[in-house]
């Protein structure tokens, strides 16, 4: 039986990116939301809600980028130079965000500085990731297998739109995680923030969904040609339904459903993008099959990945289970 290795790997890279976006999404989102309160104990509680998880969450970023390199070196070698500026900015933002976890716990007079580092770092990382997404969708110029554009080709109104959309999306994930993990004033406020953010995110999704088919002919073709349209029209409908369920869950004081709805919303947006772009890993020219590594490489990596991913997912679930329940006020940082 012939396995389409590039297709399998596209699914794995897709999975790793989805895991990253959801998991680091909520902790970046909370980093951003930290800026909306100035009470020290509230900030501490919000950080404690993510402290045991952030490092494991961020590891999915390394897996996503790594898997892209391993399975699709042709794409990796083009995407990274093309999106140099947002990638580097994202990395520097993550440096500040990462060390801020430790430094703010130890700092006395410079705690406000490290809080700003966490807020600013989280926000910048989110914006950059959105810009990277937008830059990828709008396409990258390739000549002779290498990037052939300038340092700022990616910077367009469209990528700015995507950047803000991802920022709002992560903030939504963060707010709904707080609803799940905290109680008292923080949880109540997070619930209100989540409702606003839900509307904002939905707004961005509508704008991007309308923009992409009209800005990019290939995407218009993908969605509106027949018979595609008959298969694809449920996607926006289901999205609206999920948003509605999420809203009702927030209104009715539900604790877990808001976070699950936010995840579902993200996955639907993600699905929409995949539908728009597949099979081009680097629009408009490079497909997954063209960018692929050799079968030997993909197979060698696949065998191990199929064995290890379930184990990894297993102990990730385990850690979330160990730290289940509400973050109590007075929980100290190790």
């Amino acid at each position, binding site marked *: 039986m012939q396995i389409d290795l590039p297709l399998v790997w596209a699914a794995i890279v897709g999975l790793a990116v989805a895991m990253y976006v959801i998991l680091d999404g909520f902790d970046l989102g909370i980093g951003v939301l930290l800026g909306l309160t100035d009470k020290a104990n509230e900030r501490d509680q919000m950080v404690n809600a993510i402290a045991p998880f952030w*490092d*494991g969450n961020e590891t999915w970023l390394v897996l996503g980028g790594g898997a892209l390199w*391993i399975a699709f070196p042709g794409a990796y*070698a083009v995407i990274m130079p093309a999106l140099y500026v947002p990638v580097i900015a994202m990395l520097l933002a993550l440096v500040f965000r990462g060390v801020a976890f430790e430094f703010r716990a130890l700092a006395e007079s410079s705690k406000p500085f490290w809080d700003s580092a966490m807020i600013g770092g989280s926000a910048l990382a989110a914006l950059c990731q959105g810009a990277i997404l937008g830059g990828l969708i709008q396409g990258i110029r390739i000549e002779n297998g290498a990037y052939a554009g300038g340092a700022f080709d990616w910077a367009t109104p469209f990528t700015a739109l995507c950047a803000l959309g991802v920022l709002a999306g992560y903030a939504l994930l963060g707010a709904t995680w707080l609803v799940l993990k905290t109680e008292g004033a923080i949880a109540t406020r997070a619930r209100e923030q989540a409702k606003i953010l839900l509307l904002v995110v939905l707004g961005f999704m509508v704008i991007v969904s309308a923009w992409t088919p009209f800005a990019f002919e290939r995407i218009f073709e993908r969605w509106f040609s027949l018979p595609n349209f008959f298969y694809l029209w449920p996607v926006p409908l289901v999205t609206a339904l999920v948003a509605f369920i999420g809203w009702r869950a927030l209104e009715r004081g539900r604790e877990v459903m808001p976070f699950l709805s936010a995840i579902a919303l993200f996955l639907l947006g993600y699905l929409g993008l995949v539908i728009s772009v597949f099979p081009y890993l680097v629009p408009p020219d490079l497909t997954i099959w063209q960018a692929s590594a050799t079968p030997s490489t993909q197979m060698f990596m696949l065998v191990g990945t199929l064995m290890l991913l379930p184990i990894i997912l297993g102990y990730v679930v385990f850690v979330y289970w160990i730290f289940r329940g509400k973050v*109590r006020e007075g*929980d100290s940082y190790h």
Partner: protein
Amino acid sequence: MEFDPVLIARLQFAFTIAFHIIFPTFTIGLSAYIATLMVMAMVTGRERLQRLAQFWTRIFAISFAMGVVSGVVLAYQFGTNWSRFSAFAGNVIGPLIGYEVLTAFFLEATFLGIMLFGWGRVPMRLQVFSSIMVALGTVISTFWIIAANSWMQTPAGHQIVDGIAVPLDWWDIIFNPSFPYRFAHMLNAAYLTSAFVVLAVGARYLLADRHPEQARTMMRMAIGLLAVLAPLQVLLGDLHGLNTLKHQPIKIAAMEAHWDTFGPGNFHVFAWPDEEAEENHFAISIPQGASLILTHRLNGQFLGLKEVPPQERPPVKTAFFAFRVMLAAGFFMVAAALVGAWLMWRGVLFETRWYLRIVANTWWIGFVAVIAGWIVTETGRQPWIVHRIMRTADAISPVTASTVATSLALFVVIYGIVFAAGIYYINRLINKGPQSRALESPAGLPTRPLSAAHDAGREALASRG
């Protein structure tokens, strides 16, 4: 200002990786030490050991975080700045790094959560298990990354098809000729460096007459380990050198500033290599010293730099001086280890204040050795990025020099701030010292006040005596 894009890209990678290597070096060693303390604490039931583990865990957390964020930078930098290398070598070394992520990074990162936040929440067994998993993760990580880097030094198990390297035999790729030596050498370096830090902290406390029991425990454990590992490192280094002579003879020639194959193989303690004139000035040498080390014969010959044209030679001054810095640091550590062991055997270690003063102020020496050693091995490989297969100059991304110069400037500034803060906070934690009460409940209150008081009383009595 005209920047050479290759040089700027090299400077950026060199800077970010030199910064990064400091933290995994410390993390590998310290995680093993913490795991050891945790197991001992669980087995003996001595709370003092648990408190010592908790003390080092707080310091560990800082080092780990800085290692993670600087590591993510490197993972993406292969693509941003070295895309041609990534396209060329990705089929071969990509999976090695992929397995590093899957088998090591997730393991460490996940169990770190329990290690840092599990106190009072999870049973002691799980706490101990988590610290062992983190220590194990760091070793597995070292395995994979050294395999990948070693392939760049002694490529094997591949073939070149359509201008890129494709895998032939995965066993040969991973266990390439230089891998076992470099893996052993680096792993030992990590344990050695960390042991020296523990020794220094112990000495510092004794000099200040604080936490005397903990300080003595730390020094005893550190010296015990150093007395074995420091001399072992000399042996591992020698074996590594012999392997390098076999597979990368021009690197050895540069390290020794050895120009003529048939000339005397003197070991230059100091010299000023003149790369234009292809000779050394102001040489202070041990006659036949290099021949002896490299060929185990007094008149043994080894390849000189003049065997290859100048475009195939690494930067001689860099490799030469970095190597001597590493040797100096390394032999200092051997001396410190052996002197310390002798003093301990004579029972006067804790009262020998001149020794305590020296080691307390040289906690950084292992890091100097590690960075110097890495400079030797990486610059010694130049002008190749993959030894004799791909040149560094052909490996960069199509990104302008000014863009890279900007990102380099940002890295220098931001890493500078973060590093300074890290050292400051670690120093603060060391000044604070191990807690006198075990942190067992989430609110930070001891759950066994009597045993905490008992320990505190014993410590107070011990420091008086």
